[in-house]
């Protein structure tokens, strides 16, 4: 579903954010992406969501080479994936309902179908009762769940999350992660960037570890070496959130 083929990304400043990254995430797979800040996690997600283009190599989404996707096609590619951010990226002048309805409004659904899907998505994240409120009235965890509802309302094939639990306490974080697992259960491919190693380790999913723009480990959290190694990286360079 997501395939990186010798992908490098060098920014105009000369900084090489990714160096010959190779991995393949199969359809329906859930994986974490970890590494300390500056390791290239965000860049990797931006290449998938077409916010950035690789300097070398190819990125494939569902078999389609993204280098062949022109600017006018980018919106349609993005509609096939849900993106979740640490800072939620909600519109604060609109209600929770309208925020979640945004992707459907863009794709052109009828109001009836839109309402049905928005309510289903809000129900999934447990916020059905707050649909008429403005995001500012919600807690951080609730705002994040609105962001998740918006990302899944279009029933995307792929969900990308960039530090989705960055601002949340451990209990809320694991709630969010369990929510992701439920989406994974229905066949959605997930790639979650997170530095919360203790949380990731508990979840028994594939972990891609980035360091200095390269994948230095790719495996499951059961492997104690990898977790330890990653943990060491984190403890020696605590991430400023």
């Amino acid at each position: 579903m997501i395939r990186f083929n010798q992908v490098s990304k060098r920014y105009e400043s000369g900084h090489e954010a990714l160096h010959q990254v190779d991995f393949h995430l199969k359809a329906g797979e859930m994986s974490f992406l970890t590494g300390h800040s500056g390791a290239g996690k965000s860049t990797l997600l931006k290449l998938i969501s077409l916010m950035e283009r690789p300097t070398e190599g190819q990125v494939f989404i569902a078999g389609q080479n993204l280098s062949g996707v022109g600017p006018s096609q980018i919106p349609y590619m993005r509609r096939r994936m849900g993106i979740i951010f640490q800072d939620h990226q909600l519109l604060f002048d609109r209600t929770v309902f309208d925020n979640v309805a945004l992707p459907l409004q863009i794709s052109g659904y009828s109001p009836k179908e839109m309402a049905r899907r928005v309510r289903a998505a809000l129900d999934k994240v447990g916020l059905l009762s707050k649909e008429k409120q403005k995001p500012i009235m919600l807690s951080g965890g609730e705002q994040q769940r609105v962001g998740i509802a918006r990302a899944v309302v279009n029933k995307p094939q792929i969900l990308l999350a960039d530090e989705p639990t960055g601002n949340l306490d451990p209990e809320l974080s694991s709630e969010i992660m369990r929510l992701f697992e439920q989406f994974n259960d229905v066949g959605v491919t997930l790639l979650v960037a997170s530095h919360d190693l203790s949380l990731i380790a508990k979840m028994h999913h594939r972990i891609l570890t980035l360091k200095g723009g390269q994948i230095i480990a790719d495996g499951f959290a059961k492997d104690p070496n990898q977790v330890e190694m990653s943990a060491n990286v984190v403890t020696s360079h605590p991430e400023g959130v």
Partner: protein
Amino acid sequence: MVFRSSKKLQKPKRQHSVHKGAKFSGPGFKQQFLTWFRHHQSEIKRSLKELLESPGATIMSMTVLAIALALPAGLQVALKNSQQLSQGFDNASRITLYIHMGAKSAVVETLSQQLSKRRDLSKVQLINPEEGLKEFEQRSGFGDALQYLGSNPLPYVIILTPSNQYSDVNASQKLLLELQQLPLVDKAQLDLEWVKRLQAIMTLVQQGIDALALLFGVAVLLIVGNTIRLAIHSHRDEIKVVKLVGATNGFIRRPFLYTGIWYGLGGALLAWFMVVAALAFLESPVEKLSMAYGSGFQLQSMAFDEVSYLLFSGMLLGWLGAWISVSRHIREIEPG
């Protein structure tokens, strides 16, 4: 509590097939068109609502636009009124008949009397050679030289003024051709030069107003463009988010285009109001003046088609200004 809807999530097969089946699992074309239409409707309302939320700034921008639109519109109305006035001058067009040299005074006088009975002529003036010579002496300053001439070289001259309904250029030209056929007439001349000059001046003024309208039209484009640029800037975060969830540039452009149209329409309406107010202000002095001249002149306001033209131009310029601005700035705002 958060996951109370887990039942819904346990129907994976159907959803899964949707993901794999269609490349883009969206609504059908007809549905998309309907929603596109609905989105237009909602954006028309939303953009207006947003403008009304900050009435002070909106009115100020619209007033600037109104001044830029009212100037050419007002000049156009002024020109229209002066054209009406110059139609009055047209009535004064004159035809001069030069009679054959040998013609007897009695015959010429009979002709003059016949002419004065015609309904298409309002005034007939006969000038005999002696009168003509006297006038020439006075005006030319060749008085002494003329004394050396043995005989009077001037013919009889009849000056005719066409009556009102025959006074326009075409009718008097026709009249001229007819009078030229008279046996006594050597040469007939229509005194049209100054009418033509006036018309040339009017054309020039019209072109000047057109050029001015073009200039102010560009000003309106720039004003709207800049206003929209600021609006885009204040919606920067929103545009980023909307782009991230897959909005096309057309979708993002739409509300700004409607904002531009609203600005244009508001500015044009205010411009109309300004012109009407200026005319109302001028009405009574103009009336006094025209009464003093015994003229039936009345100040003409903007006609229906002129108002429609003003409003339509305003909206078009607003839309175009917004379009140029949005197209330029929307590309700069990219998520990431």
